[in-house]
């Protein structure tokens, strides 16, 4: 009886502390988002272009200038302008792109799936190869796999991603002809695709058009391989160090003494515990690939958010740049939040 009592009390207390922790957590996420908004707002203010002049032109008389200034809300105190900015963003109004003359949010909704598709595939393959490589490197420390992981790590941390992308195009597209060149599809296939999700592989599979699907695969293979390589460099290195840490623990020794097979010790006992911090690493790698999209999409002419931002940059389209920056920042925060929550879920010590 006494036992169940304490267990019940413990549960209530645990529940209370969980809800308290959740409130704190939600507050931190909200504060971070407001901070993000403050940063983009601040960047928008330090642009050395007078937004009023951009609208009325430099020949406008003073009273027109003053009226437009008032209409744009620029005569209000800064904090009020910030409040209006936050309100607009929360209503999904990120301004209008000068370049496409569409609302920035519509543009982003159009370009983001392409980025998401690339980054997701890159992370999936990166983890698929990176985790086993890291485990093997830790188990056979100093062996061949360990050396490979080390070299891959060094290259991944040292080589500019856009440069490797260009070399990849040179070798695998131009010289060997194994893959198709920049872009998502050949021009002839471009108009055969019915956009549903905005992700080219899923859309072509949904349409049941395997010729388009094959073409899409030949286009996405190289950028995916490149992103997967960078993701793998990071994931395998971290997996190795987590596994080394786990394998030196006493419970591993206990398992060995009990006669558990080495394979079971590595993959069932040690890796299971290493998976918890690995979730954070994989999430971080995913977020990094989304960020790196700015460079990879430029190299591969990939019609994603990264290229949208760089194109807007080159045309001084600030609302598009800041909108894109904000969306990537929010996605970043969301990924970190989810990985934090998963961490708490999987690691009993944090409960």
């Amino acid at each position, binding site marked *: 009886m006494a036992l169940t009592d304490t267990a019940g009390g413990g549960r209530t207390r645990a529940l209370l502390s969980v809800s308290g922790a959740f409130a704190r957590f939600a507050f931190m996420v909200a504060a971070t988002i407001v901070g993000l908004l403050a*940063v983009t707002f601040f*960047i928008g203010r330090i642009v*050395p272009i007078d937004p009023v002049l951009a609208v009325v032109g430099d020949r406008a008389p003073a009273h027109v200038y003053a009226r437009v200034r008032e209409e744009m809300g620029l005569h209000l105190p800064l904090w009020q302008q910030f409040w209006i900015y936050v309100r607009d963003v929360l209503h999904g109004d990120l301004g209008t792109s000068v370049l496409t003359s569409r609302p920035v949010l519509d543009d982003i909704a159009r370009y983001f799936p392409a980025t998401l598709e690339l980054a997701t595939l890159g992370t999936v393959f990166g983890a698929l190869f990176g985790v086993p490589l890291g485990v093997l490197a830790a188990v056979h420390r100093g062996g061949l796999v360990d050396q490979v992981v080390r070299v891959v790590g*060094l290259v991944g941390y040292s080589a500019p991603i*856009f440069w490797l992308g*260009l070399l990849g195009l040179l070798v695998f597209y*131009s010289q060997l002809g194994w893959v198709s060149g920049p872009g998502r599809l050949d021009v002839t296939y471009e108009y055969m695709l019915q956009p549903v999700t905005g992700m080219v592989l899923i859309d072509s599979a949904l349409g049941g058009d395997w010729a388009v699907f094959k073409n899409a695969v030949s286009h996405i293979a190289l950028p995916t391989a490149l992103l997967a390589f960078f993701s793998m460099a990071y994931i395998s290195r971290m997996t190795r160090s987590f596994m080394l840490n786990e394998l030196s623990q006493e419970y591993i020794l206990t398992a060995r003494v009990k006669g558990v097979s080495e394979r079971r010790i590595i993959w069932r006992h040690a890796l299971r515990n290493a998976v918890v911090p690995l979730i954070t690493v994989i999430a971080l790698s995913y977020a990094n690939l989304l960020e790196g999209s*700015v460079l990879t999409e430029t190299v591969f002419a990939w019609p994603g958010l990264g290229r949208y931002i760089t194109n807007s940059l080159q045309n001084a389209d600030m609302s598009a740049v800041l909108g894109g920056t904000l969306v990537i*920042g929010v996605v970043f925060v969301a990924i970190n939040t989810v990985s934090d929550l998963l961490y708490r879920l999987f690691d009993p010590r944090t409960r």
Partner: protein
Amino acid sequence: MAETHSPARRPTWREWLTDTEPASRGQARLGRAYLAWRSFTGNPLAMVGLFIVVGLVLVAIFADVLATHSPIAGGDLRTERLKPPSAEFWLGTDHQARDIYSRLVHGSRLTLMVVMLVAVIAMPVGLIVGTVAGYVGGWVDAVLMRVTDIFLAFPRLILALAFVAALGPGIENAIIAIAITSWPPYARIARAETLTIRKSDFIAAVRLQGASTARIIARHVMPLCMSSVIVRVTLDMAGIILIAAGLGFLGLGAQPPSPEWGAMIAAGRQHIIDFWWVATMPGIAIFIVSLGFNLLGDGLRDVLDPKAAK
């Protein structure tokens, strides 16, 4: 062996340095530095890294001597444009008939400048924010760390991009933007280190002697946080070089005709299929230098921060 017993013999430098009972602070410090140096030189990869970084510095200093051509002015556009590597043009020429080798040599100055200025701006900021937050605690800590987290929550390259977009392209603005995005991890590390020492007896002793908070932070806390922050900065330098090159590649860093490596890759991009060397050579330079900083950082970490080495 007999000599070691004779008391009159003067100790060798090595014995003096490794003396377990140093007679002065200076001797103790030099001894520690000597041991750190020995352990560093015992690591071949770290020595390769040091070699590369020293090489970069030397190339930057003697760029005028090492360059065979002008980095800015091109040769004859009719006969010397897009030439493959040869005895005359060691790494070939670009689309404006400029010698790529000479441009790379001069570009090392820009790379070194970016790395050093970012470190000089971001390191003190991170150090001050971190140590003040950690030592003072309370709401100061909460506010400072929240600001740090907000900056950490932003993807670095995108944030730098947005800042450069606002400030206007150019190498100075790129440096400012990269520095703005660089300090948060240093603040985090400095704070973590500060938390482990703020309750130490020696801090209590200094406080009892009447030292002010500012003095304690500046003279007693910061020096102890330095080594981990320096390790982190060194490890970060490869990342700084890559971000600067990325900004240059997107046309937001150094502007033409300056021989910035990332911008050189961008210029060679349209010729990549037929004239591979134009984009490949600057990439190799970036790769080697980042590799050098990574190896050096790993080596320094093993020496200065043995806890994190595993």
